[in-house]
């Protein structure tokens, strides 16, 4: 076990869910919400506390697309490629984000861990397609140009933080 990993957050989350095996998905969701990914250190810890095998926890974590074993960026940019957004040209927007950030189909997160670019299918705002989401904020009627402006703005926010 990693000596210098702080398990207090994990403990709190486990307590919130009464250490119930059945709630493993909710537990992993809360952990991911906190760290923005699932740190490897938590797996043996959860296995012990929940009395289930580490392999089973890994199998759950890898089955669901929302879980990430790799650290994600401070800003997670989700580009909607649901039907409504697709027919209104969501792909050029995705391309633009990737280009601005030096990312690709195989590389989703910048090395400085500031940005992650992913696609999702429908964010429930189809009337404003094409739509993207940055962390919890939805941006509507996007264009490649707006994408570039947004990256500029987010980078400024990072610089001023």
């Amino acid at each position: 076990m990693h000596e210098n990993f702080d398990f207090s957050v994990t403990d709190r989350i486990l307590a919130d869910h009464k250490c119930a095996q059945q709630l493993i998905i909710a537990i992993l969701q809360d952990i991911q919400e906190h760290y923005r990914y699932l740190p490897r250190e938590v797996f043996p810890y959860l296995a012990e506390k929940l009395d289930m095998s580490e392999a089973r926890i890994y199998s759950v974590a890898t089955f669901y697309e929302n879980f990430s074993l790799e650290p994600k960026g401070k800003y997670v940019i989700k580009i909607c490629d649901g039907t409504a957004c697709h027919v209104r040209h969501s792909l050029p927007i995705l391309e633009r984000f990737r280009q601005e950030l030096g990312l690709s189909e195989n590389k989703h997160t910048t090395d400085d861990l500031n940005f992650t670019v992913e696609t999702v299918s429908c964010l429930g705002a189809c009337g404003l397609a094409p739509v993207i989401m940055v962390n919890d904020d939805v941006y509507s009627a996007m264009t490649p140009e707006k994408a570039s402006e947004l990256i500029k703005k987010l980078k400024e926010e990072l610089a001023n933080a």
Partner: protein
Amino acid sequence: MLKSRSELSALREEYAKAYAAQSRRLIVCAGTGCVAGGSMKIYDRLKELLRERGLSVAVELEVDPHGDVIDLKKSGCHGFCEIGPLLRVDPEGWLYTKVQLSDCEEIIEKTIIGGEHIDRLAYKCGCNTYKKHDDIPFYKNQTHIVLDQCGTINADSIREYIAVGGYSALEKALFEMSPEAITDEIKKSNLRGRGGGGFPAGRKWEQVRRQNVEQKYVVCNGDEGDPGAFMDGSIMGGDPHRMIEGMIIAGIATGASVGYIYVRAEYPLAVERLRTAITQAEELGILGDNILGTEFSFKLNISRGAGAFVCGEGSALTASIEGKRGFPRVKPPRTTEHGLFDKPTVLNNVETFANVPLIISKGADWYLGIGTEGSPGTKAFALTGNIVNTGLIEVPMGTTLREIIFDIGGGMRDGAEFKAVQIGGPSGACLTAEHLDLPLDFDTLKKVGAMIGSGGLVVMDDKTCMVEVARFFMNFTQNESCGKCVPCREGTKRMLEILERIVAGEGRDGDIELLEELADTIVNTALCGLGKSAPNPIISTIKNFREEYEAHIYEKRCPAGACQKLKKIYIDPELCKGCSKCARQCPVDAISGKIKEPFEIDLSKCIRCGSCLDACPFKAIKEA
């Protein structure tokens, strides 16, 4: 905590009175679309401005307001998000559209203080101005029974829900009806599952009710996996109590004491509203132990999905709630016998449950009067694509595509020609011009090889390539295949490869036949509904648009002019003024040149996205 029926009735009377007494009500749309457009900032600004002017503001229904109060509320999605952010002004029923932060002062001055309508903010179409929400053609041609409160009531308030008659069906079910009578009423109403299959809900309830088992469950499927559909999300976020009421009634009817709502990961707003709603219902004693002082107890939990489309399938969904990987299992046994935690389980869709309180309150006979004989009631659809009005709609079953596209949808966008509509998302099929007058209901669609499915309706014009549409959906399902069985895992991969080849201009003789053969195998041998229905979009596009496939394969040509790899984009040096605007638009830096000299496109970099075509002020960029 309410301890009896009369206490709830008394409370309802009090709330109804307070609700009716509201003299000025502003309802800001707080659905996902309008929030993205800044509606919450508008809400805050209106509140601030009202207070600055010394007007008292009520954000929750107040029973005994002191003096004149302006009610400022947040609603769920109205369905017509593209004209948002929306503000509804009551009692007049006015709808203000595309409201901006800078409009707030004027709204307070003119409308609140002066009582005047602001023409500038009204919805306009052609030369007509529509002041009232209900007069707008998009709404006028719809029948809202399930969605009728989405957009009019405060989505965060159990008080308003009760004031407009909410939880009276629960009262009736709890105090006037036996579990058998409730089940019989649902059976008689012929309410059919809105999650895709159209299985009669009453039959499921009956199967669960009859089993003499201690623990049973009620599960609501709010996974809404079809990309491009958002009606279940809107119901959960716009009128959460209605669905909860339906679930509690299912609990009474079947003898289940625990319920789960499985909500799609991408709906944080719906989760928040449901959480609020559950807490409010618990505080009033409408959920929890001994509901309204009776022997009946019902506990409701929320499970959030984690991004797997296959979890919309019943057995995968229950596995996911149990904290396992969402693999479907072989059926039978059915969910009604071995469902959640291996116990008898009623699994229904959000919209299905939302219909239940209406049927119990107004009776099965009333319900049977709406829709068609075999498919009573209404259906919500998510209308998108190349039409004038896109959004969430609700129409009686049996409405025709023509009515939906032309009366509600306002016709094709930019005067384009109608080509097809894809119904039911990635598991669905396409319908063509010959189906425009077909009544949309479960049985009629089945006859033509389509299905209502999730309720996604994508309208396509003559510039849409049907092979590309097929590829898009296959790409989606292939990605979402859980990999448990070979036909689906390997078969969809092969089908996708072939489709990708065809749209890239590398199709070969025999590809169509190969697609048909693979489709046939997958449909007949895949383990769950995902695999069984994955080939549907391909089967139906081949059936209806075989010549498009052939043009791609044999002539390397996309008849719709949509397939990017079959396009050549070039700059006409005669027309180009060298302004560089296109180069700035290009997402992949494929355009270069010297200012004031003709620019050039590097086709090896160009991804044929088309952005530059619209960007050039001189129309110098062309496709061949």
